[in-house]
């Protein structure tokens, strides 16, 4: 596997992991484990950043090329990226909320 398909999977895998971390952070704080939640947010951010780097490189590549490269898999990857980004905001809000309940 190479090229655009591989790039899409690198993004899906990284930001998908990030999204899972953010949701697991909510689950941890639900159980009162705020240290665990914090660890998962950091783990999520690391995964998200690696996906973001791949995506940014793709944008640069497109800006340099005259031809537009796009397929459904890349659209799916960007969708996952947006979802992960949204889930981080929601996770942080939920952690705050659970802190109010537990502490």
């Amino acid at each position, binding site marked *: *596997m190479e090229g655009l*398909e591989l790039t899409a*999977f690198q993004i899906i895998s*990284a930001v998908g992991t990030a*999204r899972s971390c953010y949701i697991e952070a909510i689950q941890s704080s639900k159980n009162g484990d705020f240290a665990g939640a914090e660890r998962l947010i950091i783990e999520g951010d690391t995964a998200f950043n690696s996906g973001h780097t791949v995506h940014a490189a793709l944008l640069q590549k497109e800006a340099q090329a005259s031809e537009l490269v796009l397929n459904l*898999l890349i659209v799916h990857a960007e969708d996952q990226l947006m979802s992960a980004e949204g889930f981080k905001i929601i996770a942080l809000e939920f952690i705050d909320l659970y802190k109010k309940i537990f502490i």
Partner: protein
Amino acid sequence: MKKIVLLCAAGMSTGMLVKKMQTAAHEKNYEYDISAHPISEAKQAAADADIILLGPQVRFSLGKVKELCPEILVESIDMQIYGCMDGEKLLDNIKEKIGV
């Protein structure tokens, strides 16, 4: 024949990984029944599976799937393997766990 079930959000990206795994299984002469399904169909799709694998994007459902299928081995797919679509490596990892 051992049955391997992959689950992700829609069954879209894991569907491509399944194709890679099937090719690798064919080359190595492993007799596996490999399929991909959306996680919403976990209960029906994985009823008689030997191992259930979750994509990184649904890893947070690991606990729920384990509850749903208590007698089946449930694991998440490594982010690096998934990102490289390394069907062969994933297949080798599975073989270590459930045999052929």
